[in-house]
């Protein structure tokens, strides 16, 4: 049925947009914690913000702030994507 096909196509496009967004956000999630806080910490520790070596700051403060921002951004962005595909709840 054409109506069903249209709905499936819309759901597919929605899912692709979601996965693309997820890949971007999970890359940021990885970069601030495992990247800045662990793997590249020594390089970043040569810089400082206030009394914090930068890598240490990411590990004990910065990554957590970014985590919170990531979830709220995802919520906001998904609402828009869902409305565009007429799949919102």
């Amino acid at each position, binding site marked *: 049925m054409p109506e069903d096909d249209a709905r499936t196509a819309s*759901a597919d496009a*929605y*899912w692709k947009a*979601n996965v693309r967004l*997820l890949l971007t*956000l*999970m890359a940021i*999630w990885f970069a601030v*914690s*495992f990247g800045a*806080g*662990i*793997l590249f910490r020594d390089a970043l*520790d040569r810089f400082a*913000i*206030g*009394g*914090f*070596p930068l890598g*240490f*700051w990411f*590990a*004990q*403060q910065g*990554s*957590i*702030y970014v*985590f*919170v921002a*990531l*979830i*709220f951004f*995802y*919520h906001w962005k*998904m*609402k828009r994507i*869902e409305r565009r595909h007429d*799949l*919102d*709840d």
Partner: protein
Amino acid sequence: MSTQTLIYLFVGASFALYIGIAIWTRAGSTKEFYVAGGGVNPVVNGMATAADWMSAASFLSMAGLIAFSGYDGSVYLMGWTGGFVMLALLLAPYLRKFGQFTVPDFIGTRYYSSVARTVAVVCLIFISFTYIAGQMRGVGIVFSRFLDVPINTGVIIGMGIVFIYSVLGGMKGITYTQVAQFCVLIFAYMVPAFFISALVTGNPIPQLGLGSTVNDGSGTFVLQRLDESLQMMGFPAYTDGAKSRIDVFCITAALMVGTAGLPHVIVRFFTVPKASDARKSAGWALLFIALLYTTAPAVAAFARLNFNGSVAGTPYAEAPGWFTNWERNGLIAFTDRNGDGVMNVANGDPFTGTPAFAPGVGPSGERLVSNPPLPGNANEVYVDKDIMVLANPEIAGLPGWVIALVAAGGLAAALSTAAGLLLVISTAVSHDLLKSTFRPNISEKNELRAARIAATCAILVAGVLGIYPPGWVAQVVAFAFGLAASSLFPVIFMGIFSKRMNKEGAIAGMVAGLSVTFLYIGWFKLWNPDASTADDWFLGISPEGFGFVGMLVNFAVALLVSRFTPPPPPEIGRLVESIRVPRGAGEAHAH
């Protein structure tokens, strides 16, 4: 009023509040008992999730662990918060859309297999009981130090409180009690942190104070001062830590993935009205958690600075009052190796294990310890890391009501987590085992009764674990996260993101991930602890971090097995398609 009276007052008032809320929000149906009726506001649910998640370990132990491990403590900070990003982005909205009551529900339905469901139930029960044992120890510590009652009496009082509101109210009662407990615990954590930050740095915001200069006119930064004083005593620098990079990486990853796979956290997202609310709710939960988690590293650094200043190199005769208070409770010990009466602090343990006190006092008046001193270092002071948060107000000389507040906060943290865990255990028994596996025709009234009986039994078991703590409890906390990471997370994730994953792949993956993790942690933690050194570990990965490897094994085995076995039936493909789109979630329903 004396500090002791204030403590009774604060703790008593908070307990009365929790019970009052429980009576007001009694559960009348299984849906209210399991998922609070499915209509909880996402911000309220976020707050309840935060209290559910932040346990005695977060409130009491974490800052102390960071204080004594510096940078290495970052694994807890990133691991226990980063998991919420995975939860919000990869799991929660889809599980909410799926719309049943429990994690085994999802695994059993998605993989069309009661074997998969049963494996999930077994993992869930093991993870939750391991966790509860830790909460009971937290309750015991707070009671014995602050309320002057024996630990056992404290555990029984705590169990009684949890019994009233979890058996009566189920998820509904727990949700609203946890909101109250969050308010108590976050207030109790922040107030002393503000005071101490202002005292040490002149800046009352602890997150900023940690990056400021010490308030003594020297212009030295807090972290710089810590690094210098620790290196002088022969410790690694505070901002450097001692763990290898691969180990820090793997522990962080195991804690993150484990957090995302913990059933008592996941189930909280079944209680909101819509799939999109699950995302929003996870955001609020992490925001509330971040308040405590960004404060903890500051509290840790200030505590260590104060400890270095007031204990290290001080004669025992001039030891501060809090030091001897906690020594009386057996959580601090001083063993004068060189007989000079001075408390020398150095890198290494003064003796193996916890102190075994001998009768009588030493030449300086200290409690004598019968443990043989550990050769190879000059450290003479034993501190149980769990006490740093509780002792902090005393260390900083804060007024009695702050100390009373911290006691009430520690209890709120332990009780809220214990209640959430008891609920998933009782749900697993009454819903996943009894209704879904053995007696599908059970009436709702009987199922609700079974859930209450199961909750009662779980409380009794938890109480026994608290009163007779098995020696392995502290050793196996790694189990809870390792098993959640290596068993539950991968199958839930693949159940949403891969239509091709079938029951053979999922079961093989769970069993493989679970077994390697179980054997590795068991070998190094229980059966052969002497061999647990970095040289013997696989690639230098400690048992705490091995859940990450177990997760990779689970994924690899599942993908391989599913390629050589038949694809799932077509209705599973339709199920996956339907959970991927948020529209039409409705309320959580029984099948």
